[in-house]
């Protein structure tokens, strides 16, 4: 018990000193980036994390029809697919305008600030029944399809790690932090 308390105290006082290391259990195992590549899936708005590969809207159309339209409707235009009638998957391709403060009317085209989020979210969470089952090329193609159908990119654009972060989303500057003092400053 005494040892335990001593340890807690030491951590508290020495946490930010260079020799704190010796005071904590040090049980974590070092790991090389190549050994966590399968987990390292986050994409940042500047394109950091985007993998190799590419895709176009034309390539994305049949992938969408096969993997996505069941919930998101033909062409991503939305569908009621639940027995209860509750909205399940949102429309992905729509000219909906934001109606006042109604968050249910925000869409990729009218609201999402970064196109990288489309790639990131498809790759980590979709399809609903089998996330992480698509190849990176397929995710690029689906991203291109959704952006092109929303008239956010040239339908011929080949999306890849260089072109995707350059896509300008209309509402990029439409946001405020609630507590600016809590936002990190680089």
């Amino acid at each position, binding site marked *: 018990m005494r040892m335990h308390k001593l*340890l*807690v105290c030491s*951590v508290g006082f020495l*946490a930010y000193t260079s020799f704190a*290391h010796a005071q*904590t*259990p*040090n*049980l*974590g*195992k*070092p*790991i*090389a*980036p190549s050994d*966590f590549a399968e*987990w*390292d*899936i*986050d*994409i*940042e*708005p500047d394109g*950091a994390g985007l993998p190799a590969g590419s895709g176009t809207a034309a390539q994305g159309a049949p992938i969408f029809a096969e993997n996505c339209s069941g*919930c998101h409707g033909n062409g991503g235009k939305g569908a009621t*697919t*639940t*027995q*209860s009638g509750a*909205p*399940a*998957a949102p429309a992905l391709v729509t000219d909906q305008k*934001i109606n*006042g*403060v*109604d*968050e*249910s009317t*925000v869409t990729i085209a009218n*609201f*999402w*600030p970064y196109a990288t*989020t489309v790639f*990131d*979210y498809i790759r*980590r*969470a979709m399809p*609903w*029944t089998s*996330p992480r089952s698509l190849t990176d090329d397929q995710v690029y193609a689906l991203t291109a399809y959704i952006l092109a159908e929303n008239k956010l990119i040239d339908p011929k654009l080949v999306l890849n790690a260089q072109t995707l972060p350059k896509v300008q989303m209309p509402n990029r500057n*439409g*946001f*405020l*932090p*609630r*507590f600016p003092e*809590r*936002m*990190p400053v*680089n």
Partner: protein
Amino acid sequence: MPRSSSEASVETVAGNGILHRRALLGRGLAFAGTAGMGAIGLPTAAAADPLTESPWSLAPGDPVPPYQQPSKFAKDVVRTLSNPDFEPRTSQSRTPHHLLDGAVTPNGVFFTIVHDGVPAIDPAQHQLLIHGLVKQPLVFTIDELHRYPMTSRTTFIECGGNSAALFSPQPLQAGVQALHGLASCAEWTGVKLSTLLDETGIDPRATWFVGEGADAPHLSRSVPLSKGLDDAMVVMYQNGEPLMPGNGYPLRLLLPGYEGNMNVKYLRRIKLLTQPQMSFYESKTYTAPLPNGKAYRFYFINEVKSFITRPSPGSDLQQPGFCEISGIAYSGKGRISKVMVSADGGQSWGETALQEPVQSMAFTRFRMPWRWNGGPAVLQSRAWDEGGNVQPTRAEFVAKRGELPSVPPLLAFQNHHFNAVVSWAIDSKGVATHAYA
């Protein structure tokens, strides 16, 4: 018996029968008069029936189970499900605040939101990776995390979409569970994130980290690194037992005071970065469109808030006389310092008794004695925190944040972070309904 000699000391402190909170303290004041007219004016009922033995007192009881469940007579103290048929959409379950008391939420009725089902994670195979802008990426097993110095703290978690129905331009008729059931409070135990980051080392360029879950959506959220070094924890215990599967078993990120979704469940990865990730859940969901056409993003904090749990719709008054008004207050910025209650729709207020201990960023139970005269009343509560932040009235809130253009479905999330004063109207039968006042 004579009336209590101290009757005169239980003064009314606000309109429509709100009594001084002193009436809840020490014996003798409020309850000394047990026959005839009590000290606070409750007419005593007719004489009780004779007492006899009951069947359960005349035979052995049931065997003791390894893990006990609530009494079958408490079968209604359960969560309500938004997606009982498990359709391919998000599932929420809501805490029955009107059937609970105290300041801690039992694990079985702690609210849960999952975006693609509850994962069944084998803790023996679960690992936490910390990498990105660190000196040395490290992987920790759950067994290894159990060998670190542990700390416990009691804190609430509230979904950013809790109370979203109150953005409706008209009051939706529902109870405290449907309207405010996406907030719960527990004692959490685990390891301070700063301890683990000491071991990985931190590249000085890092300003954010991403927390990511092992659930099917691989849910990810960006968090300021300063929060991670301040009071963030990776927790494994909830009210003393392993985390519930719906609350993140075997490991979740705990960010006291911050929006529920940021407290990433099934935590398997932390990556230090120089920028936020702008994940789906922070650049679409959990944003708050504003009347000026902009939207709040990175709201972070659940601001000071309170609501009355009893009486409330579905938990009505039985008869005129004394009753206790009871509810929950909390702030993501610190301790609750004061909760006021009104029975006349906010025209006059009395200060409530706060149940000790009052802990930072935890549910605080407030109680207020009230003598209901059997007439109409509008009950409200309003909370202050130690930083001087005050829960806005609905009018103040709507002036800044707006309200929806039309009445939404009860369980929809058409905006986020509602924390204004809530009103329950009481009619002459004691029935409570949701009102705007």
